[in-house]
């Protein structure tokens, strides 16, 4: 599968502070890459780097197989950016302008802009073209961004917290839209989100960043279909630890007030070996917590 985005070894420093430390990730054609991490972990900075919004200290960004960066030429900018739809974490459009005027700005910028499609999305999302941007709620602002991002027929969507602020029904609608977008195996999506349940539903791969470093980059099914989270009492935990099921230093766990949560890399094997211990399907959220905050024994 060809990669739409290939980020390799990004480094960004501010003085002595390194905010991106050898960050690499990919977004394949036909795939949705979920990008997760705590606040300030480096998600938005990585997205800014991919979009060529800041100079880098090291590393390369390839978009559609072409090197891209802050000082790309006019022709490269036109070639690459016209194929990307962007949704930022806050609605960036000029507050004083009505939604219709926002469409005019986008129409002027994108040769491939389809006004009819934009109007269809406005209708679908219940956005009144006469309403001013500043009067939109956060969720409505996100919908307007999505309408703008999709109306120029992009090949790649880069979404920074696109589902934040949406009510559950609207979120499901947006997730359906994103699934539809990648269904032809020609498009791809990079989506950062705090709402990992959304990524549970749509992501193909999940990349996690913490303190500017990638801590895991896995296929989502490897997490949610294969792994499990065992809810152990202390005595059970000790029994598992001494059973030889895990290699020494490989038991990733978090102590909770009611017991110990243990990461089972193969939950089916775990359940066969320890049928008396409850073992749930792993969610992305649980896996992130175990990876970032868990201890090893």
């Amino acid at each position, binding site marked *: 599968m060809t990669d739409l985005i290939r980020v390799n070894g990004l480094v960004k420093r501010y003085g002595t502070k390194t905010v991106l430390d050898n960050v690499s990730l990919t977004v394949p054609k036909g795939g949705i890459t979920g990008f997760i991490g705590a606040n300030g972990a480096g998600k938005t900075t990585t997205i*800014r780097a991919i*979009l*060529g*919004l*800041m*100079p880098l200290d090291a590393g390369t960004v390839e978009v559609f197989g072409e090197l891209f960066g*802050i*000082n*790309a*030429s*006019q022709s*490269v*900018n*036109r070639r*690459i*950016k*016209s194929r*990307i739809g*962007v949704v*930022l974490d*806050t*609605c*960036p*459009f*000029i*507050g*004083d*302008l*009505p939604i219709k*005027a926002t469409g*005019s*700005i*986008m*129409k*002027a*910028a*994108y*040769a491939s802009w389809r006004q009819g499609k934009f109007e269809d999305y406005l209708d679908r999302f219940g956005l009144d073209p006469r309403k001013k*941007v500043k009067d939109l709620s956060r969720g409505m602002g996100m919908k307007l961004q999505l309408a703008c991002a999709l109306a120029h027929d992009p090949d790649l969507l880069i979404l920074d917290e696109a589902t934040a602020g949406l009510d559950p029904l609207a979120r499901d609608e947006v997730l359906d839209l994103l699934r539809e977008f990648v269904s032809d195996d020609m498009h791809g999506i990079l989506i950062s989100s705090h709402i990992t349940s959304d990524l549970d539903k749509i992501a193909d791969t999940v990349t996690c960043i913490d303190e500017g470093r990638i801590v895991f980059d896995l296929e989502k099914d490897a997490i949610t279909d294969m792994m499990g989270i065992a809810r152990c009492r202390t005595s059970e935990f000790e029994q598992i630890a001494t059973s030889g099921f895990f290699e020494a230093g490989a038991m990733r766990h978090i102590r909770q007030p009611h017991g110990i949560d243990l990461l089972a890399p193969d939950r089916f094997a775990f359940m066969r070996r320890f049928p008396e211990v409850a073992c749930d399907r792993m969610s992305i959220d649980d896996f992130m917590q175990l990876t970032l905050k868990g201890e090893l024994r």
Partner: protein
Amino acid sequence: MKAAILSEFSAVKNVLLQQFVIYLVVGVFVGIGMGSATAMVACISAMAPILMVFTFAGYDSMNGWERFRATLPVSRDALVIGRYANVLLTSLATLVAAFVIALLLGQLVDVLPIDAETAQFISEEMRDPAMIVGGGLMGMCVMLLMTAVLQPFILRYGMTKAMRWVPAGLMLVFFIAVLILPQVIDAPAFLVDFIAWSENPDNLPLLVGGLTVLSLGIYCISCAAAMALYHKKEL
């Protein structure tokens, strides 16, 4: 380039009408108050460049618009050129509109609530449209020079920082000039000679033409400086 200019223009076209009403009200007050159509056109034309720069700068600092704008399919150079072109084109359009208002004022001079002497003066001015356009052009060019100083800093550092540092820088330049100039030229005598030269109507075309060429030249240099400064800006 066309995409950069048009998208930038689309962002401000809704406020152009509001701004034009402001120009009109202020311009008519100045024109009637001073009893001069040339003063009115000069005043309106002088307001346009600086108001456009502030409008664009205000939008840039709103909701992360500047960052989003940089994700559109245009290069950073094109964004800067688009900004400069829009300020210049809307200023020229305002100059034309101000001239049309002056023509209307000339036609309505008999029905406006102004004294006969002022009406007579405005009627005489209307016989020399080139003088009115020249006045407007000079007003516009002087303010274009000011925006040429401001814009690179506004684009690179944002309006808040630019408005804090540029006046301080200008004051420094002024004091250095006051200290150094007397050693180079006899400034008071030069000013007196220059004013006497510029008051000669025969020299007016040269003055207007010279100021236009000078201000457009500096405006282009400013655009190149802004492009260089904007290249590395983090958005």
